[in-house]
């Protein structure tokens, strides 16, 4: 390849040659078609690694399509610019054109005509999203799929990064810097991404691998550009660089593995976590705190909501509360201390594929209800608002997918309406068989002793957790009486759910309270048993026997034909203010949250007994109580809620064996990782020797033989000087045999006619013999040190070989 073909980008006459020979100028990495292809592949790898942190934000095929289109378009523009030697303004114009043409089908697919052609509205959305989608992206629940125009940020950044990387790689004198755009793309993905670090190590390692590969590629191409070396030397030089890269990777792997094992898992501080959340639940009163107000006789009959499609026996949850401070059970704050407090905007829909339950669609019309919480059923998949404020409500709707609680900051008001598609919770038909789940709820104060005594009385610790929980629910149903403490109630009942009130509930004879107390008491007892538990405030469907709440209207209009949802009831349920209720949800081993109602049926309350007998309780259990959970993240390691479960001997032995195997395996892995750089050195030397010995020409084999000897001597500590001749190197080692070998090699290299037949074999035999002589007087430790010495792979080799031309 001539210098003209390599370098003269601007010359039109050289264009065809450049196409054949590679793209770009001599200053970049595109010196041949093969090197151009490799460089492009490595740049794609870099960009792909940089896009890994973006994946948890989208988790959709649309994201993959948008990223692929952006990479292809950006690299295409960059390559075209390099090929045609475009000035920067032309490259920018081409990028803008590519963005406008491809942005709509790739990043705003919902606005593309036939999925391909951009529509005027799509282009407007695309342009608007360029400025507005960034904040929207970090204030919305993930994954967002292809919701609205939220694919624009990664599409735009990837487009720019691809073009910049290619331009830097092929048009500048510093192709190494081509890593930078990908690094910035990755940093943006981390900053705009999710708080958990599920892909952090994978992304970091892949990016490191890609970066090292790119740097090695650039170094190899630079070395090749200098030319003037034999194929063997080039191969050795490249092998040395690859070795260096592998050593770096090994160290990185060790470091990453150690970091993964040793460092605590914590939530990352990203833009999403720092941006002010659109909804602060702590700014609003806990719905459980105002529970009793719903039973004020003056307002109890107010119609709050009219719901169509609510399955019988299913409560309409207003809010799920998982944070208890001993006084108030509430939704967690937005400061991240509780998953229940993290509300994000809802994209077009949520993926509830993994949630078990029945699909339910409810249509709700708001009457007197005026709270911020948006009542719903189970885990929400989609919500459509109606009424005059539909758009405002849709924009302001936030959702916590962990607790299944929705809210609008402006609050619902009369006239509002919405339709929600959800997955309703399972019927706890096998409560006694349940095992505790692994989610961790915020720590709560110790239950009052009275409640613990009651728990022991109802559910001895010797029983299975599910049986104990069933006993608790049954206990409340059996001895509890409902009184809201209103004037219409015959027995007074103090409001509140602080610990003292719960203690009173446990000791009162008869036990009198309402949902506020029963739910909190049951939640505390369920937690004590080991179940993750939380309190739900919502509306329960009144019994039809009451005759006044089920209107039995036929559903119409609200249900889309063909929807596979439970709409069988097709009746409108009128929920009044005093239909408010509180119940609990517990998580079972498979992760599903099961609703349990501890509230006893309303019935006549017997007279209060004059003397309070002591509660008969069983002796205290010798077993320790289950530990309190303190972590927040639902993804954390499982809590030990199964201490009380007996383990058989086989299981215990298997556990011990598994532990031992794990420790041994990890130890071997760590040792292998630590030893890997040394093994890499040895392997590289073996590979180097093989390359030298199997070189194509006899001269190369002979010269390689001398280099092998010189490298061995250098590794043994002989001061083999850079830029010394073979005879000088032989003198450094000493003895006649090296001098003879040097003269034989010199004759093969410099004499007319080249080497004679068999010279190469004789040289290598001599090299082997000399290597044995070098090793013979040394200890095993010295030989090992020489074997892993980097001298012949490092500075000595670099200056000796690299300095040549």
């Amino acid at each position: 390849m001539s210098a003209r073909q390599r370098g003269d980008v601007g010359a039109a006459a050289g264009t065809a040659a450049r196409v054949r020979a590679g793209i770009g100028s001599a200053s970049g990495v595109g010196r041949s078609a093969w090197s151009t292809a490799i460089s492009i592949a490595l740049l794609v790898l870099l960009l792909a690694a940089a896009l890994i942190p973006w994946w948890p934000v989208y988790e959709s095929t649309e994201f993959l399509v948008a990223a692929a289109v952006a990479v292809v378009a950006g690299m295409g523009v960059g390559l075209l610019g390099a090929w045609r030697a475009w000035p920067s303004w032309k490259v920018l114009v081409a990028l803008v054109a590519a963005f406008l043409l491809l942005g709509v089908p790739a990043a705003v697919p919902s606005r593309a005509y036939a999925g391909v052609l951009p529509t005027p509205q799509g282009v407007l959305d695309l342009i608007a999203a360029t400025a507005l989608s960034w904040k929207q992206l970090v204030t919305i629940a993930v994954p967002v799929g292809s919701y609205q125009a939220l694919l624009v940020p990664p599409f735009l950044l990837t487009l720019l990064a691809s073009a910049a990387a290619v331009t830097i790689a092929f048009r500048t004198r510093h192709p190494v810097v081509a890593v930078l755009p990908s690094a910035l793309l990755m940093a943006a993905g981390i900053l705009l991404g999710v708080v958990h670090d599920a892909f952090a190590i994978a992304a970091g390692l892949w990016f490191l691998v890609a970066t090292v590969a790119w740097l090695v590629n650039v170094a190899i191409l630079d070395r090749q550009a200098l030319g003037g070396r034999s194929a063997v030397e080039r191969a050795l030089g490249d092998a040395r660089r690859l070795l260096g890269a592998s050593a770096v990777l090994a160290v990185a792997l060790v470091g990453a593995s150690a970091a993964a094992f040793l460092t605590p898992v914590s939530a990352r501080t990203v833009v999403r976590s720092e941006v002010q959340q659109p909804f602060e639940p702590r700014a609003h009163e806990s719905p459980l705190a105002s529970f009793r107000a719903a039973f004020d006789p003056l307002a109890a009959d107010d119609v709050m909501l009219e719901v169509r499609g609510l399955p019988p026996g299913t409560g309409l949850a207003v809010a799920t509360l998982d944070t208890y401070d001993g006084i108030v059970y509430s939704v967690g704050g937005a400061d991240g201390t509780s998953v229940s407090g993290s509300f994000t905007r809802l994209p077009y829909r949520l993926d509830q594929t993994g949630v078990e339950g029945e699909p339910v669609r409810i249509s709700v019309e708001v009457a007197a209800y005026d709270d911020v919480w948006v009542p719903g059923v189970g885990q929400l998949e989609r919500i459509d608002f109606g009424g005059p404020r539909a758009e405002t409500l849709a924009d302001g709707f936030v959702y916590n997918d962990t607790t299944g609680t929705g809210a609008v900051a402006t609050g619902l008001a009369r006239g509002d309406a919405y339709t929600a598609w959800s997955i309703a919770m399972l019927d706890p038909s096998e409560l006694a068989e349940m095992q505790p789940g692994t989610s961790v709820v915020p720590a709560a104060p110790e239950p009052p002793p009275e409640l613990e005594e009651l728990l022991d009385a109802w559910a001895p610790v010797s029983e299975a957790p599910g049986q104990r929980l069933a006993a608790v629910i049954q206990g409340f149903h059996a001895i509890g009486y409902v009184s809201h403490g209103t004037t219409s109630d015959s027995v007074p009942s103090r409001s509140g759910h602080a610990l003292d009130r719960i203690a009173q509930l446990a000791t009162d004879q008869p036990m009198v309270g309402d949902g506020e107390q029963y739910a909190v008491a049951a939640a505390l007892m369920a937690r004590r048993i080991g179940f993750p538990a939380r309190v739900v405030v919502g509306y329960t469907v009144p019994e039809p026997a009451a005759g006044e709440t089920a209107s039995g209207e036929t559903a119409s209009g609200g249900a889309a034909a063909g929807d596979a949802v439970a709409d069988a009831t097709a009746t409108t349920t009128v929920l009044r203010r005093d239909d408010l209720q509180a119940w609990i949800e517990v998580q079972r081993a498979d992760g599903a949250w099961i609703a349990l109602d501890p509230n006893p049926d309303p019935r006549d309350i017997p007279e209060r007994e004059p003397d309070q007998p002591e509660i008969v309780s069983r002796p205290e259990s010798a077993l320790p109580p289950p530990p309190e959970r303190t972590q927040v993240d639902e993804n954390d390691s499982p809590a030990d809620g199964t201490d009380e479960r007996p383990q058989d001997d086989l299981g215990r032995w298997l556990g011990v064996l598994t532990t031992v195997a794990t420790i041994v395996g990890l130890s071997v892995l760590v040792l292998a990782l630590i030893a890997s750089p040394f093994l890499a050195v040895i392997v590289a030397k073996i590979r180097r020797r093989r390359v030298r010995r199997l070189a194509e020409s006899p001269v190369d084999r002979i010269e390689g033989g001398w280099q092998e000897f010189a490298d061995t001597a250098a590794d043994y500590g002989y001061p083999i000087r850079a830029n010394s001749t073979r005879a000088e190197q032989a003198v450094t080692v000493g003895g006649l045999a090296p001098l003879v070998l040097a003269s034989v090699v010199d004759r093969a290299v410099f004499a007319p006619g080249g080497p004679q037949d068999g010279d190469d074999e004789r040289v290598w035999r001599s090299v082997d013999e000399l290597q044995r002589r070098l090793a013979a007087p040394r200890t095993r430790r010295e030989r090992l040190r020489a074997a892993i010495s980097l001298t012949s792979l490092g500075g000595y080799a670099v200056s000796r070989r690299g300095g040549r031309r």
Partner: protein
Amino acid sequence: MTMTPDEAARFASNLDRLVGAVETVLLGKNRVVRLAFTAFLSEGHLLLDDVPGTGKTSLARAMAQSVHGTSNRVQFTPDLLPGDITGVTVYDQRSGAFEFHPGPVFANIVLADEINRASPKTQSALLEVMEEGQVTVDGQTHPVGHPFMVIATQNPVEQAGTYRLPEAQLDRFLMRTSIGYPDHASTIRILEGADQRAHDVQVEPQLHAAEIVQMAASARTVHVDPTIHDYVSRLVDATRTTREVRLGVSVRGALALIRAAKTHAAGRGRHYVVPDDVKALAEPVLAHRLILDAEAEFDGVTASNLIAQVLIETPPPSSRQAV
């Protein structure tokens, strides 16, 4: 036509005989003697930069005796005229014609002692003969003979009454070296034979002058790999780009190095040049051709140091494909 290994072996054997013979006079100076014969067989001239009394005259005389040749010694003084060296044309009354009387330069080996004591005009006359191998007087050209070699000596320029040789004329010497004082053992051996006057010591002739001419022609056929040419070129380039050098080695210097390296290789019994030949001769062949920067000279930098540095920094070829 390239020298064969057998020819190289014979060449080395003859050279060893010559060197061995001269070493009986110049004790302990194998390197200098070998360098002198290398210059002789390369058809070049030798400049000995030395103080008096180190054996310069003995070297020249012994070399001339060793090859069955003639040798003359010219003591350069400030009043020496060019004709005193080249010869003069005298009118012969008996024959009635002008007759050329050859000067001392007409010999196989000419020892120009203390050449820097003569005036530049006289120096130039000798250097012209060195370059052309002939003397032209009154329109008549007189070849000085073959083989022909000038061994010039000069005192250190710091000594009074000397004229420094012009750089262009220095370039015409193939090598510059110094004999130096003998080592302790050699000094004792010299002292043990002190009763014998130096000029009484006779060296047995080893080869005829014609054989020397044949050896010189043979040395020119030593093979030089292109990588060696590249190496020499890089060395010369390096001398030109070194900061301390005002004027680097000329092309004539590069040619001289190759020529001397060929003879050096043949003297080692090789029919091909290796980088070690170039390295061995780089300092004596190139150092006197460098003109150092005044500031560098003031700092104590010497041409020999610079050549040594260039040799360290310039990687020698190690493979055939290096060019």
